[in-house]
């Protein structure tokens, strides 16, 4: 049994690595199809063929793409993701520098979404079909249709420019204190949250309603337990599977860059880095970012699996066996 578990984790890791390798290879090849190059961009009107050749040679960009990929891969295996010709910065450092912003936005956005969606869902599922359910459900349908690129400009205009509740610009990292940080992070996170509020609310509501028709809920009620108690202690946990799954997927997608919001608000996150790197054909940086995104995806997936077993002990046993 123990062997089996070991083998299973090994398989899992192998597959994760395969996903990462394939994803980075794919993006390397894709990027090599793109017109232009970082050398042309940086040299601009000074881009004589000789200058370009010299530049490429300096940065090891003169080999065929697959060879460049292998070189990169050899480095990546030992944790060296290379340096960006654009900035001269180590890719790893560049990503690690940007990651906190993106992660904070993602977590804060999802946090806001959950903070709204869970109570909404609990209320709706308690009185399904009633007025309050319809009202909240309609509201969340409305949120569903407000993507960040609509929410962002409007929120800036209303909350920052008109009401001056938040700054229009800039980013205070967490190191400057939570209040200062939230000041700058709130509107961007809120723009992210809208759509997710709706998604989370609907999922959880549906699952709660179906959980509430389970026998064990009736059994808990028949014990004389209070409504709120039954909701929170008995219904919420078994209803959160889909929510957790979607949370994972969303987090994975956001961790790769809250691109629109970062661009819109000019935040120094991974998304902006990725956009910039793609636009400038900074292939090394793009591959680094994709590696990170893939690792994140794999990691989040694993976390979701682990949380399944936290949510449902049946899964725990299956996994442990």
């Amino acid at each position, binding site marked *: 049994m123990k062997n089996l578990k070991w083998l299973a984790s090994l398989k899992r890791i192998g*597959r994760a690595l*395969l*996903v*990462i390798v*394939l*994803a980075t290879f*794919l*993006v390397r090849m*894709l*990027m090599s*199809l*793109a*017109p232009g190059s970082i050398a042309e961009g940086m040299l601009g009107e000074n881009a004589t063929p000789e200058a370009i050749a010299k530049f490429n040679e300096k940065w090891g960009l003169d080999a065929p793409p697959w060879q460049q990929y292998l070189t990169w891969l050899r480095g990546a295996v030992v944790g060296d993701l290379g340096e960006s010709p654009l900035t001269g910065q180590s890719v790893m450092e560049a990503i690690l520098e940007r990651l906190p912003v993106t992660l904070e936005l993602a977590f804060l956005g999802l946090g806001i979404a959950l903070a709204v969606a869970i109570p909404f869902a609990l209320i709706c599922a308690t009185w399904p*079909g009633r007025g309050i359910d319809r009202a909240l459900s*309609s509201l969340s*349908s*409305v949120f*569903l*249709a*407000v*993507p*960040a*690129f*609509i929410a962002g*400009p*409007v929120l800036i*205009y209303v909350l920052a*420019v008109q009401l001056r509740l938040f700054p229009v610009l800039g980013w205070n990292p967490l190191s400057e204190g939570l209040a200062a940080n939230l000041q700058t992070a709130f509107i961007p996170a809120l723009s992210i949250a809208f*759509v997710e509020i709706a998604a989370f609310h*609907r999922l959880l509501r549906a699952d709660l309603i179906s959980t509430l028709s389970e026998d064990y809920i009736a059994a808990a009620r028949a014990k004389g337990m209070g409504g709120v108690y039954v909701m929170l202690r008995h219904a919420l946990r078994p209803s959160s599977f889909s929510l957790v799954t979607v949370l994972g*997927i969303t987090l*994975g*997608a*956001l*961790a*790769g*860059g809250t*691109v*629109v919001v970062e*661009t819109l608000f000019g935040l120094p996150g991974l*998304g902006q880095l*990725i*956009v910039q790197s*793609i*636009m400038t054909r900074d292939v090394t940086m*793009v591959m680094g*970012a*994709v590696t990170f*995104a*893939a690792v994140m*995806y*794999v990691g989040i997936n694993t976390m979701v699996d682990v949380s399944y077993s936290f949510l449902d002990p049946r899964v725990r046993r299956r996994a442990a066996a």
Partner: protein
Amino acid sequence: MTDVPTLIRPDAAQELIDGAPAAEALARVPVARKKHSILVWACAAWLVLIFALAITAPLLPLPSYAIPIGPPRLPPSGESVGFWLGTDNIGRSVISRLIYGAQVSLLVATVSGLFCFFVGGILGLVAGYASKGLDAAVGLFSDVMLAFPPLILLLALSSVLAPNAATIILGLSMLGLPTFIRLSRAHTMSWSAREFVRAARNMGATTPRILFREIMPNVVPALAAYLPIVMSAMIVAEGSLSFLGLGIAPPTPSWGGMIAAGKDSLASDPQLVFIPAAAIFLTVLSLNIVGDQLRVKFDRTVHE
């Protein structure tokens, strides 16, 4: 037959049998919920309208979306059809751009939605029923696609290829594919565990027959019900791309592009943002609500 034991008829109130209480109970049963609320109808109507406008756009008495019809940033006015929603930064008719923009949004969402539906559906079907090897290969493919953050994929594609509808369709298809593969695979697995599949095999059915005649008809409605929802996600994705300046090349309008172009004038000419934003909002909302309705309906017919 007179002395009914108290334990059998505790109140012995025989006259109550079929009179008042039954009627009272009947009256107290909550009324059935209307199957289609006004909202659903309104949403369906909006979709019909916007699709109809997009399809018939060339036949409508609209000015060209590419040629200025007046001074820039005119507010909406009743002057002539072209001016109903005012003019944009360059003086082009906003209503024309909105309707032709619908063409792009809807085309992109529909084509890539259908592509995902068909290709993802079939891949998922095969993966869900086929041998472990094939399943693993399809699973790996969708994992690799998912490992890309969606916008990276789109960004990379739009900068690699020409910024036209085909590129965006390709990108969105790649994005939507894993979702459909997973959905289809999950449904296939759950349906193929049903005994009727075994029964068909026992009748001598071959694997293709089981796959396409037995399982597929059951999987398709579930996938189809997701189509509007996925399409709405694609409209948003296309909007985001256009917003980031990676959408379709000018002068072809798109809703996301219109918002991006207008966002700097939000304070002075908010209509430039709000009109296309409202179009996206209504369409996405409608697709979601109609999709939900379909899904609920489908679930009901299956589970009842």
